[in-house]
């Protein structure tokens, strides 16, 4: 079903989406917020730039954007997949607890902050380009992968990555000698077992955006994890 977003509010578009499950193609999108919020059982393709909080609380639906996306993509999403054929704004995947976000290009500030996981439910975010500052701030679970493709000399991540990180894993493609990590995390070169963990995710990225898996993986990766289960126990009070 094709939905022309021209002169339609986000409420009107979401109401159409809610009426039935299946495939939708939204055309002429320009800034409508909350698209697909909380939805499952749908495959939504969007032409044009959607507004903030795209796929917030997403619960299993698939969303593909053929352009850039703005702030707060996949906010607190629970399940499903968001694919962005461009770059994304700030605070992508904020507090996401399941599902996957694939971004062809760059991410803004605060991607993946407060990501969390529980037992088999592990959220994944793959950023093809570079990420802004505070990547994975307070990360509590899940996997963040940044590939730095097309970085053209830019740092793969801005300042203060992994601040307050206490769970999950972050993978950055490259040696990361120029990146300052906080003392409570360990950044080391990924070994084969580590890479095996993300092979599937990177393979999905390459299939979605058309690049060669072997070329992407043929580089050193840095893996970042918190030092222990409770690295901040002495920071405020003993707990």
């Amino acid at each position, binding site marked *: 079903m094709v939905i022309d977003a021209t002169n339609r509010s986000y409420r009107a578009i979401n109401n159409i989406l809610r009426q039935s499950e299946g495939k939708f193609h939204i055309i002429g999108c320009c800034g409508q917020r909350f698209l697909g919020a909380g939805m499952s059982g749908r495959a939504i393709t969007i032409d*044009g*730039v959607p507004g*903030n*909080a795209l796929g917030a609380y997403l619960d299993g639906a698939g969303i593909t954007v053929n352009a*850039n996306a703005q*702030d*707060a993509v996949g906010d607190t999403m629970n399940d499903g997949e968001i694919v962005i054929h461009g770059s994304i704004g700030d605070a992508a995947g904020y507090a996401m607890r399941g599902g996957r976000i694939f971004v062809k290009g760059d991410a803004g500030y605060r991607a993946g902050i407060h990501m969390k996981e529980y037992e088999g439910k592990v959220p994944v975010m793959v950023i093809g380009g570079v990420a802004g*500052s*505070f990547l994975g701030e307070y990360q509590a679970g899940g996997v963040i992968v940044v590939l730095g493709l097309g970085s053209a000399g830019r740092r793969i991540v801005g300042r203060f990555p992994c601040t307050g990180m206490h769970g999950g894993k972050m993978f950055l493609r490259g040696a990361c000698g120029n990146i300052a990590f906080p003392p409570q995390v360990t950044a080391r070169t990924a070994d084969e077992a580590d890479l095996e963990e993300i092979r599937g995710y990177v393979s999905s990225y390459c299939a979605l955006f058309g690049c060669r898996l072997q070329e992407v993986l043929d580089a050193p990766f840095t893996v970042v994890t918190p030092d222990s289960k409770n690295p901040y126990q002495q920071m405020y009070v003993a707990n």
Partner: protein
Amino acid sequence: MQRQVCMEMGAFCFHTFSERTETDMKVEGQVRIPSGCAIAAVISREGNRMTGERIINAMKPMHERSNGLGGGFAGYGIYPEYKDFYALHLFFNERAARKNCETFLKERFEIVQTEIIPTRKITSITDEPIIWRYFVAPLKSALISQQLDEKEFVVRTVMKINTEMPGSYVFSSGKNMGTFKAVGFPEDVGVFYKLDEYEGYSWTAHGRYPTNTPGWWGGAHPFTLLDYSIVHNGEISSYDANRRFIEMFGYTCTLQTDTEVITYIMDYLTRAQGLTLEEAANVIAAPFWSTIETKKDETERKKYAYLRTAFSSLLVTGPFSIVLGFRGGLMALNDRLKLRSMVVGEKDDMVFIASEETAIRTMEPAAENISAPAGGEPVIIRVKDGAF
């Protein structure tokens, strides 16, 4: 004291109310009203003039970032026929206030043109004050007797009217530029002021999202002084510290809105202290000490340290994204943590700045080089020399 805090982060707005007093309806200035908001701006590097229609349309996809309690625009290059005169835009509560203020102006200025600012009657904008503009030049005799240069004289006059003449308020005082603001959604405010009939080489716009307001027109953005105008999305934590410092230098903050103080800080740093815009940006959005330490160039390191130390009271903390308009250019700046969104795009000689990419796409669907400047890194766009 009632206090509202509205922090718009992504799509969400958190409201915190502390104790409310019996006298709930205070006028602006007695109660502090920070705001969330949408901003947008456009400039032609070639100095080509465009009507206000494009910037009005830019605000439409960002409608949800405002709540109808304030919208405004600044246009540069809009008064070429009076480009050598200060264009004073004033709100008056009543006719008597206007008469009184005009008498005061005549003692200080040669007034070459006096007129009502043209507006359209539209249902979405109501309760307008009396809105006039005056094209003026300071009287030589007044400058000599007060031993002031022209700009300082205009600044002091604006401050005097805004603090000592109840019912009169100067909301624009630059040359060949003008601010237009009201209580309402920005797209309606632009129609109200007939901005489609003005042509400027740059425009800025603002939609306001305070949680509560006495609904006074002067409280809308942009805030201006001389040629400077500021539109701002954010909530400044350091407002009182900044205000106490800047008021030592003859500025009076009449509104207690954080944006007003940034306007005065920029005027103080660049006009009074002679700093460049880049240096001023490194004062108000100074890098962290830990970031300064990592600078490899020693001269650069010393410069950052000097700016932080010499003007420590002008460090602006808390979330902000601002666009500063000035004669011949625009500067966009985020707080150093980048707690607000801001996107920049280009097409040919045009540069676009907005809280959201969709606002840029509305102005120019084929905009290129879309990017988000890093926190604390100013983006300065200038019109080529002689083209404004």
